[in-house]
């Protein structure tokens, strides 16, 4: 039986990818960002997952508003590095696990989560920054992946509760899979940030730290947040945080927190939490 062994909540700020590619990891303002991931890299190297399910959103790389799916699942052999408008990052293509993706899609759709299945999908910062920060990638990535894309950029968005329930359905789907796979799940995006209007640059570190507390200990409280509340408190683009609830919904309540970090240097609260299943 396939099994979820851990979950990671992390921001996916695109400038981190650029800084990584330019070798700025040791620069004083950047160092806290990259150092925060070292314990998580070590933990994942010991945990040895076979598959990473990455819940992210496409920011206009592989998906556009002509048809923008609310929930989509990748089912490709390999995911090429997308071009978001400034050329693809110098990273190797990311391996997929199409048989597992299709199994998950079957279970999810029959469990009333009507996923769009994508057999061609390039991946971008929402997916790549978390992968890049948590796993080595030379010469290739050590895990296969299942991208799950959520619409968090064009309202109406799925509710926080719906995202949490998707996570619960993902757990059931994983456990219904006969293959003996160790699975980790990423919830990405956020934390507080706003990229439009005169409120551009809005941060709310209190909100972010409370969210980091509750995602571990009381996720149900977070599912009660409306998009309006999240946007008022933490900025219009902070609604990405509902994707962390998909990660959390896929975990049990018997968890050990491996690591947690928060840093708000520029325009986005950069949060990180890593949770391991005890059983």
């Amino acid at each position, binding site marked *: 039986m396939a099994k979820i062994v851990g979950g990671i909540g992390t921001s996916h700020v695109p400038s981190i990818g650029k800084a990584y590619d330019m070798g700025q990891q040791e620069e004083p303002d950047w160092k806290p960002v990259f150092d925060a991931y070292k314990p998580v890299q070590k933990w994942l190297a010991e945990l040895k997952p076979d598959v990473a399910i990455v819940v992210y959103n496409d920011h206009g*790389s592989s998906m556009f508003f002509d048809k923008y799916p609310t929930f989509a699942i990748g089912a490709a052999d390999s995911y090429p590095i997308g071009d978001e*408008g400034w050329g693809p990052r110098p990273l190797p293509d990311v391996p997929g696990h199409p048989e597992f993706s299709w199994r998950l899609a079957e279970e999810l759709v029959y469990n009333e989560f009507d996923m769009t299945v994508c057999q061609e999908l390039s991946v971008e910062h929402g997916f790549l920054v978390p992968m890049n920060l948590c796993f080595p990638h030379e010469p290739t990535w050590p895990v296969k992946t299942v991208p799950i894309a959520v619409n968090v950029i064009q309202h*109406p968005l799925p509710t926080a509760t719906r995202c949490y329930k998707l996570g619960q359905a993902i757990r059931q789907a994983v456990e219904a899979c006969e293959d003996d796979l160790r699975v980790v799940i990423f919830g990405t995006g956020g934390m507080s940030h706003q990229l*439009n209007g005169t409120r551009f*640059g809005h941060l709310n570190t209190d909100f972010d730290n409370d969210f980091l507390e509750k995602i571990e200990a009381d996720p149900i409280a977070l599912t009660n947040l409306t998009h309006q509340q999240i*946007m008022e408190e933490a*900025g219009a683009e902070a609604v990405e945080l509902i994707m962390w609830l998909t990660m959390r919904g896929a975990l049990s309540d018997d968890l050990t927190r491996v690591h947690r970090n928060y840093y708000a240097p520029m325009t986005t609260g950069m949060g990180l939490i890593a949770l391991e299943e005890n059983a």
Partner: protein
Amino acid sequence: MTAQRDKSKIIPGTTIFDGAESRKGYRINKFAMSFTKPENREAFTADEEAYMEKWDLSDQERLFLRDRDFRGLIEECGGNIYMIMKLGTCTGHGLYHVGAQLRGQTFEEFMATRNASGVR
């Protein structure tokens, strides 16, 4: 069903990218999405006017683009920030330049408001 948005309650300084914005911005966002192909970025850089001619853009959208007025493209034309940043990057205007414009500040004024502006 819990209402996810309270449209009567405007969040100051905030535009919510919803159906109305996406309809209004469809032309400029589609144009911007074309910049995910290197050949289109090259064609725009080589001859902006000729490239814009190939697309269904309004006079106002062309004007804002010529003026590098990203605030106008976002706030008045329905531009989505992630799409508009493709135009910004191609014309040498990073996110914090665009953000400063949105706030009505200079780049330097905006950067002075940040906690650790080496993260850029």
